[in-house]
């Protein structure tokens, strides 16, 4: 089985500060891979590196065998790797439907078309309709994105990443800031819309991670200290000390 995504000795420093200190990680095609780690471990920075928001200092990011390190975000998305954001990053003054239309345009080959009306594009209409239904946002289609409730905005955030047609998705804390029942619903939504795709996600909720992840990698202080199935990670003494231990303390 080939890897969808492989990081080789990836490093990033901001001035004298090393944030990512030689990360090696492989995400298999079709797996749900969770990235966990204490605050400040560099999880978000790692996502920014993979998605092209920032450029790595050294190392390789192999996406389906191609090194994408240092490429523009748009190039990476076109290659088939898209992401969602921890802080909701949508088009606030546009309607839900318009948000989704923007996200499907590239995939359907319409790109920067200026000689056809958007409303006349049947493939766009159909794809958006399907997405609205999957995301449970059909009844909010004509509302502006900033008028949505927080879980609805998170669903749209996820929807923009999914709509781009990418087969590998980076989800940065998709459940951040949600209540327990909202998290349940969000988890079901993510499982549904990412069916058959490769997933790398940062999440803090251990219940969610152990329920959905095929494999887990633990990032501590800019390095992956362990990768394995949920059971392996739970049993790993180094992880218990570095991460789960502190999580228990926090919970207590």
């Amino acid at each position, binding site marked *: 089985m080939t890897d969808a995504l492989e990081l080789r000795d990836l490093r990033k420093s901001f001035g004298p500060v090393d944030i990512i200190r030689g990360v090696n990680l492989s995400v298999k095609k079709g797996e749900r891979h969770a990235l966990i780690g204490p605050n400040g471990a560099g999880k978000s920075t790692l996502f920014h590196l993979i998605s092209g928001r920032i450029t790595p200092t050294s190392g390789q990011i192999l996406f389906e065998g191609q090194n994408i390190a240092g490429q523009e975000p*748009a190039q990476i998305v076109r290659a088939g790797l898209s992401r969602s954001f921890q802080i909701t990053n949508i*088009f606030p003054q546009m309607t839900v439907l318009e948000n989704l*239309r923007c996200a499907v345009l590239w995939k359907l080959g319409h790109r*920067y078309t200026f000689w056809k009306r958007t409303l*006349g594009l049947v493939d766009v209409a*159909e794809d958006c*309709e399907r997405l609205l239904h999957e995301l449970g946002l059909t009844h909010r289609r004509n509302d502006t994105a900033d008028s949505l409730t927080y879980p609805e905005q998170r669903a749209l955030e996820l929807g923009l990443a999914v709509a781009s047609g990418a087969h590998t998705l980076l989800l940065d804390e998709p459940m951040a800031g949600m209540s327990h029942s909202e998290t349940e619903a969000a988890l079901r939504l993510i499982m549904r819309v990412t069916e058959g795709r490769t997933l790398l996600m940062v999440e803090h909720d251990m219940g969610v991670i152990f329920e959905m992840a095929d494999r887990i990698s633990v990032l501590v202080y800019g390095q992956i200290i362990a990768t394995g199935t949920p059971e392996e990670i739970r049993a790993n003494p180094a992880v218990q000390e570095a991460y789960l231990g502190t999580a228990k303390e926090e919970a207590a």
Partner: protein
Amino acid sequence: MTFPMTDTKLADRSAALSVAMPVLTVAVVLILLPNLFGSNAMISTLNYLGTMAIFALSYNVLLGQTGLLSLGHGTFFGLGGFIATHAVLRFVEADIAFPLALIPLIGGVGSFALGSVGGWLASGRGGMPFAMITLGLAELVAAAATLFPSIYGSEEGVSMDRMDLGSSFGLSYGPNVDIYWVIAVWFAICAGLLFFLSRTPLGLLQNAVRDNAERVEFLGFSARRVRMSAYAIAAGIAGVAGSLAALNVEITTVHALGASTSTLVLLMTYIGGTRHFFGPVLGAIVIGLMKIWLSDISPAWMMYFGLMFIFVVMVAPGGLAGILANGRALVRSAGFAPQSPILAGIAIAGGLSVAGLIIVIELAYRAGLDAAKGAEISVLGLPLNAESGLSWATGGVMLIIGVIALRPLLDRLDGKRHAIAQAGGAK
């Protein structure tokens, strides 16, 4: 999946209706105008307003549609004017009977080409860097004007005679009304094209860049290319407007591409309202008329301009079009009747403060700048005197009473609306 299809068809039909109405209205208005206002002076005013309306529509592709604040849009208006003027001169020289009505096409294409180059330079980022680069480019072009007097003319500009190309399309282009028809048709073409653009995927992406340029990149698009496209399209249409202005007044000077032109189009577009397609047209008409008529009546017209701009920025960011739309929604709503006494009070208090402000401003101009004209002055029909304390007090008291009365009235309006909203919620 039959639902999406019917939905699309329904949307198509309602879209077709919502397009047909404005198109008919615009066509009827454009045809009626010269018949209603037939005098030569009025036609010349209409010609000016028409060119400015096209210019403001082009600017809104940047400001309203893509969220880009250009401080140098006048450049392309002026360049369009120069290209058109030189085109006419060259055709006359070479004895080619090019139809005058199509000259704006040359100005537009030329400006579009120059705008593509400028857009490539300016579009790397939005916001502040974009505004600064457009300002720099505008200064650059204005400075270059002094280097090439053969292109820009010197102080007196470049002039031409629009009749030299002979008649075409049944128009001799001598009378102003002939130019009116040229401007009216170009207005319809430009407004139609820009309206269509706003409904295309590119128009949608321009809105997306306005809302959140970074996320556009993460959807596979280059925000830079979207900005560039907006810049070039806006430049092209501005070039058409500049060409029409050149045909209308038969002379183009460096002032056409200067900072004052850039400021004027920004004011027109913003005051008119950037979020409604025809907002900029409304702004061009209101500001254009103020510029023509108010400058005859009052030396303080620039001051009123500025005050109006500040008022819109602070109180009504939707512009005049936003005020009209909100007003229409309010009048149609059920809550209008109970609110109307308070609204009438606000109108009276507001009117009183504005009248007071106008009196004070006019007296100040008469006492300062225009002291040579004597102290006697008539403002809003009142015989006043710039040296009389009573005159100053009249204006001052009106202004103060108006402003003091506004505060509790606005509070009561808020309370009333809150009560109406709650009553509505309780049902």
